[in-house]
């Protein structure tokens, strides 16, 4: 199934939540959806006959400088088609529903997004840092991140 068709299907089902279709000259097209509706949309994408996106390849947090975002790369092993969903989040207190209950693999990806960008996922069973130590300060992949001077008495910078 082509990306355009999936987008049309989705737009029909969620006219309010599906915001924008970004088709670029180079690279993959993507669909921007409302962050609050992400759980419902993902559930629909997984369960709907003919779509059946049963494989969440990648969930990434993003910092677009003026806003945060998340990107979901979906596969269907059955139909071998892929789809990209994006959400945009405000700079202050970014949060959106978790898709952990739909794809278990999202558990660690969402923890990583929280660790790196401070994006909070609601209803996540274990929203703690994953890569950095649990008492790390700041969110390293934010564009305006300034590194810690010391950690537990050991100097970090060169």
């Amino acid at each position, binding site marked *: 199934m082509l990306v355009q068709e999936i987008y049309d299907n989705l737009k029909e089902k969620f006219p309010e939540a599906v915001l924008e279709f970004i088709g670029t000259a180079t690279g993959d097209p993507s669909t921007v959806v409302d962050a609050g509706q992400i759980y419902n949309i993902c559930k629909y994408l997984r369960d709907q006959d003919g779509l059946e996106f049963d494989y969440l390849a990648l969930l990434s947090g993003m910092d677009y400088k003026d806003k945060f975002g998340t990107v979901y790369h979906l596969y269907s092993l059955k139909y071998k088609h892929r789809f990209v969903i994006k959400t945009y989040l405000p700079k202050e207190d970014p949060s959106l529903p978790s898709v952990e209950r739909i794809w278990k693999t999202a558990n660690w990806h969402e923890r990583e997004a929280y660790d790196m960008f401070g994006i909070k996922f609601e209803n996540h069973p274990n929203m703690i840092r994953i890569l*950095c*130590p649990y008492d*790390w300060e700041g969110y390293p992949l934010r564009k305006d991140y300034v*590194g810690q001077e010391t950690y*537990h008495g050991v*100097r970090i910078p*060169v």
Partner: protein
Amino acid sequence: MGFLNRLDDPFNAEGIILGKVEDLLNWGRARSDWYLSFGLACCAIEFMAVNASHFDLMRFGCIPRPSPRQADFIIISGTVTMKMAERIITLYEQMAEPKYVLSMGSCANSGGPYWEHGYHVLKGIDRVIPVDVYVPGCPPKPEAFLDGIVKLQKKINQQAIFKKRAKLAEEEKIIVND
């Protein structure tokens, strides 16, 4: 000079008896280096290759020990992060004296390729534990690593046990006298 003089006071640190005993002790420590089987990053794979048949680290008498208590030296084989640094300090402290540290690869030496922007990388393991031998490379070739082992053995061979004791005792005397 030389041999006859050393016979005069055989129990002096440089005398014939203690001198030879020291040589024996050093020989034992240098020739039987048990290392902690512990890998960190990319270098650990090269380190595994050093262990394997082609390079065979056991030729030098290096036998892997899983427990730090029984190990003589620890090989910091790869990038040390802030999260890991505390564990490495613990491991180092758990080892029994005399103990040695071999820093393998650029990351352990100085942070290596993660030198500049690595907010979570320790810039050199010598910031937290003392290092005896540095092996450069990213990752070092097995030959370089074996050279590091030979260097370490040379270093152990030249260590002063009784001289050091005498020196320490002298220093203590001075402190007491003061």
